[in-house]
Structure formats: structure tokens, C-alpha cells
């Protein structure tokens, strides 16, 4: 993004929302998003929903490595 961030319109905020939530916006655009979300109820609600969904998706990432995998890896590191 090379354009100077100005006061964001809702369509811009929606377009940039996932970049914002993923931490991929530069400082100035991030601040512009913060300002918009602090003043726009609709976009704030959308951001909160997408943030909540991201969190639920992240929670599905849990898994437990089996004892046999632990043993297999220990053997690899010992034998290497």
C-alpha cells in the first residue's frame, strides 16, 4: 500500500480488515483502522465477529503427539 492513509470509509475498512487482523498493515494504515473501528459501530461489530472466528479456528489447532512419535524423534536426534 503506497497511498497515504486518510480517514477510512467503511468499504476501505472492510477491504483492509483481514490484513489488519492478521497484523499485516503498516503503522499508519493500522492507526487509520483503529480510528475507524472506534467510531463505526457496524465495522466494529464485523471486526469483532471476524476476530472471534479467527480465535475459534486457532483453537482447533491443538493435537497431541503420540509416545511412539516422541520415541521416534528421540531416536532420530540421538542417531544423527
Amino acid at each position, binding site marked *: 500500500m503506497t497511498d497515504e492513509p486518510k480517514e477510512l470509509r467503511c468499504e476501505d475498512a472492510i477491504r483492509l480488515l483481514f490484513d489488519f487482523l492478521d497484523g499485516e498493515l503498516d503503522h499508519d494504515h493500522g492507526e487509520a483502522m483503529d480510528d475507524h473501528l472506534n467510531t463505526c459501530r457496524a465495522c466494529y461489530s464485523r471486526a469483532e*465477529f471476524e476476530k472471534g472466528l479467527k480465535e475459534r479456528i486457532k483453537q482447533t489447532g491443538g493435537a497431541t503427539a503420540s509416545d511412539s512419535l*516422541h520415541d521416534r524423534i528421540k531416536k532420530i536426534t540421538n542417531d544423527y
Partner: protein
Amino acid sequence: MDKREYFAANIGAHLDRLFGAAMRLTRNRADAEDLVAETVTHGLSKIDALREPEKMLGWLLRMMTNLYISEKRKAREKHAHESYREEADSDEPAFSLFERLHQPFLLWWGNPEQEFLNKLLGEDIEAALNELPEQFRVAVMLTEIEGLSYQEIADSLNVPVGTVRSRLARGRSLLQKLLWRQASERGLVEADEGSGDD
């Protein structure tokens, strides 16, 4: 403690994360364990390239993704006559759960979006993730679950950052469409003309 000793001493603590990521990629327990073992072996062979040992988990996750994608690419080249599930039609409009659920007139009396999230089961999300075409599933998984940056994902997949953004956008849209369809089938939401089946 040299890098290899550090690696051997700390790899056990990262196995759950590595195995979880491998399960997301392969969707199969035995293949996931093989992928973890292959990643560890490869990591040991490249240990001198690990600049910051305390960041070995991220380094190994990127390596694992690269190994997985390389294997898939070789398998596709071997079976070139088989159809490969290409990215979904790029003309398909983006699907948004929020736009399906949000009812601004409710104001303080209800929050259908939050209710939807509350009713969403982990197994619903896992099932929807597993249904995604591979390119989208990998991008969504690496961002949402592993927390890699767009650049890190681009480096792992050997594609431009723009391609990562595109796959994420389409992957998220399709994931939300699949979650909507599941919710409709369970009667949690009313399927309408925007049922997500179009």
C-alpha cells in the same frame, strides 16, 4: 550448547505443535507422523542455517510446509493425467458469515453473530477446513493456526505475497460458506436465497 544440542534438547517441547500442523496438512495421522519425522531429519541436516535457535519452531513449520508442498508437487508430476483440483472460480463472489447473520435493527437485544460463534463446534470448523481445496487449506492453516506472516507463508510456498493474499481471501470465503452450510443443515440458521449453495 551448540545448535544441534539445543535442537535435540528442545524438539520434544515442540512436537505437539509440529504434529498438529502436520495433521492439518496431511489430514492423516500416519502421514502426519512421517512428515514430522522427515521435517526433524531435514532440520538436523540444515541446522547450520538456523540463525536463531530459539525460533526453531517457526523455522521447522516453514520447512515442514515446504517439504509437504514439494512432495505434493512431485506426486502431481508423476500422475499428470489425473485432474488437479485447481483454485476455485475466481469470479465467485466472496461469502461473508457476518453479512448473513448481522441484524443491525436488533441493537442491544441480541447478537446473532456471537450466538453463531457460541454454537460453532470445533469439529464443525475442522470438517470445514478439511473440505477446503489444498492450496486454500494450507494458506488458511498457516495464517490462522500457525500464525505465520504473509511473507513467511510466501517463502514457504515459493509464491508471491499477492498469491498468499488471494488464496487466503478465497480460502476464508469458502470456509465461511462451508460453515454456513453446516449450520443450515443442523437447523442453526435458516437457509435462504443466500444459503451459500450457489
